[in-house]
């Protein structure tokens, strides 16, 4: 099963990955990181196809996609 790892400390909550994920499986979490952002998390592992689009659009280079 594909897996998406997000480095919560680097995420700046820009929402680009959330917007562009074709399966709508990313969401802002309730956590707060050191910079004060609420990092994004994978909410629906089942849905994720490991397409890598989230990583492609992430300007913070903080998403790893495993397949």
């Amino acid at each position, binding site marked *: *099963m*594909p*897996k998406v790892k997000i480095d919560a400390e*680097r995420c*700046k*909550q*820009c*929402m*680009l990955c959330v*917007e*562009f994920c074709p399966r709508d499986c990313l969401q802002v979490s309730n956590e707060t990181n050191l910079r004060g*952002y609420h990092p994004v998390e994978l909410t629906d592992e089942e849905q994720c196809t*490991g397409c*890598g*689009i989230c*990583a*492609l*659009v*992430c*300007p*913070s*280079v903080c*998403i*790893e*996609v*495993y*397949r």
Partner: protein
Amino acid sequence: MAEETLINPYPDALTEVEMRYCPGCTHGTAHRLVAEVIDELGVKDRTVAIATVGCSVYAYEYFDTDAVQAAHGRGPAVATGIKRVQPEAIVFTYQGDGDLASIGMAEVVHAAARGEAITIVFINNAVFGMTQGQMAPTTLLGQRTTTSPTGRTVEAAGYPIRICELLATLPGVGYLAREALTTPPRIRSAKRSIRRAFETQVAGGGFSLVELLSICPTWWGMDPLEAVEHVEERMIDYYPLKVFRDRLAEEETGGGESDA
């Protein structure tokens, strides 16, 4: 999950230093694409990155290559100095629209005219990001900035400059394209162009430049998604996405410049 592999390894040519860009700022995306291309071409140890002055001034901290920080607008001249001393080096500048299209106009035009074998990654976000959102030469008509508070007008500030169209008139240019860092397909296309630009340098095919339409949510007063839409709806209209020249391809197909 033993068979799982990382499909997007963190680029070798990027350091671990966290980039200081605002949330959503596509400077970060551009950095990643450039770093991936450097990795793919295997030229990291002979690459020299030229950081210029703008939000990307710390690029020398982000690219894990030799690097030189250049005076505002003078990246192409600095790159020229390096390349003429070390012809084996792969030299690229990373410049914003203030840096390249405003103060650095003479240097970029002349480097292109000379066919200087360097690559330029040109981030067009239609604003001076670092200095608090002033009008840039690329600011669209009607766009509000901190120094065009009621929107840019032709009377006060003239027309936005299209750098690719300008440079396309110069035979020294080997690769020239405009891309946008907005949607996934466009980002993929942007990477292809960046790669092509570096390949042109590696092959000795002359000057190469890729213009990347980029967002500045902070000074556009938009969130990143609105900013992406603004590029799609307004900027691309004035700045059409296009490969203006690809001399390597032209040579392969036997086409190309005839008038130089």
